[in-house]
């Protein structure tokens, strides 16, 4: 069984385990947005990056995602070094700007001491963590949703933008989504960084209207997801709410 060192502590894990598993076994919390225990590791959100050096100790380190890194003999891992924390903070700055309405993201930003948002808010409904896509395919065995496009135009979608007959409206996609599971109302118009919602309780279902929801109509909020043709996506809702403030 491979033995590796995480933050100075030796740990022995089963073959096939990831560094993320090993860290969790030690009770070390590594933040993730695209990881779920029941799904194939994806390595897309990059929040779980850790600093890795080999035991041969040439001093050089690499930043690798813990969720996809197999725990191998002799690995030396730092999960919260200054470099790692800085990287996570900067990533979170980008995440908050992309989806300021996600409570999950706002909470992580607070936790990592992010105190400044320099990027313009986008109010996107999606960070493309791919949890919904993998959930639909791997756990629900439906494969009704997937990615389409590339680069800046990549998005979660359905073939030809029509609900697939494979969709059973189970709602699992909504259930795993880190952006629409809880809504943060954001804060002042000056900054989209909230930092006040660490103790927020669940918000009213009414504010789910521009969630990344693939239910049509949504069973939970009964408002209709972004793909409902008769209800246009209300990207502006959050923005105008902010301006009113």
């Amino acid at each position, binding site marked *: 069984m491979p033995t590796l060192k995480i933050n100075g502590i030796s740990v022995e894990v089963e073959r096939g385990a990831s560094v993320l598993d090993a860290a969790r076994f030690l009770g070390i919390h590594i933040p993730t947005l695209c990881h779920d225990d029941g799904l194939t590791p994806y390595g897309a959100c990059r929040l779980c990056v850790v600093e890795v050096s080999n035991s041969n100790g040439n001093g050089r380190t690499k930043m690798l995602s813990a969720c996809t890194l197999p725990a191998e003999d002799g690995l030396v891992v730092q999960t919260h070094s200054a470099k790692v924390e800085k990287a996570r903070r900067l990533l979170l700055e980008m995440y908050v700007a992309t989806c300021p309405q996600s409570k999950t993201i706002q909470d992580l930003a607070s936790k990592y001491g992010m105190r400044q948002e320099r990027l313009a808010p986008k109010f996107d409904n999606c960070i493309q963590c791919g949890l919904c896509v993998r959930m639909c*395919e791997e756990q629900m065995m439906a*494969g*009704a*949703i*997937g*990615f*389409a*496009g*590339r680069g800046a135009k990549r998005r979660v*979608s*359905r*073939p*030809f933008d029509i609900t*697939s007959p*494979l969709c059973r409206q189970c709602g699992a996609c909504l259930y795993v989504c880190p952006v629409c599971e809880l809504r943060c109302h954001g804060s002042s118009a000056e900054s989209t960084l909230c930092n006040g919602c660490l103790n927020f309780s669940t918000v009213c279902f009414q504010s789910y209207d521009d969630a990344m929801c693939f239910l049509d109509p949504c069973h939970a909020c009964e408002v209709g997801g972004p793909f409902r043709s008769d209800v246009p996506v209300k990207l502006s809702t959050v923005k105008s709410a902010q301006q009113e403030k």
Partner: protein
Amino acid sequence: MTDFEPVQLEALLADFEETRESLIPLLQEVQTQYCYLPEFALRRIASKLSVSLTDVYQVATFYSCFSLVPVGKHVVQVCLGTACHVRGAPRVLDRMLRDLKLGTPGTTQDMQFTVRSVRCVGCCGLAPVVRVDNNTHPNMTQAKVRGMLKKYRSKEDRPAGEADEVDDAEARVHS
């Protein structure tokens, strides 16, 4: 488009092995034959290769060779590689779009031209270049755009071969 298409598609499908690896070559073949990927073809290919439609759709929208909407008679590729960029390709593209009354790269209303930007066709020594169908036009300038488009637009009215010569002679006049 005619009703014969599905028949053509079946003939085409028969040439490929029913494996996942055939997906991209098959889509390329369909793209060549139909000049775009019709929905019925994607659905048929998905069932034939036992690949989910979601996957087929993802592949079809990922690669830039594929188009889900019909393209024009002539495909105009304006190279925006680095060498072409520093030698003024963006201005050539702007001019072309303006001449064809297109806001962004796409297909003209009369379905004559589809303008695309392409990242490097490997003729950097002759930058900026524009490739129309299979002909490469070297050392493009804004002033040459109109004449070039006109030539292709009216090609069918002229005896075959004549138009090409005119252009090649022009192309060889290096600045």
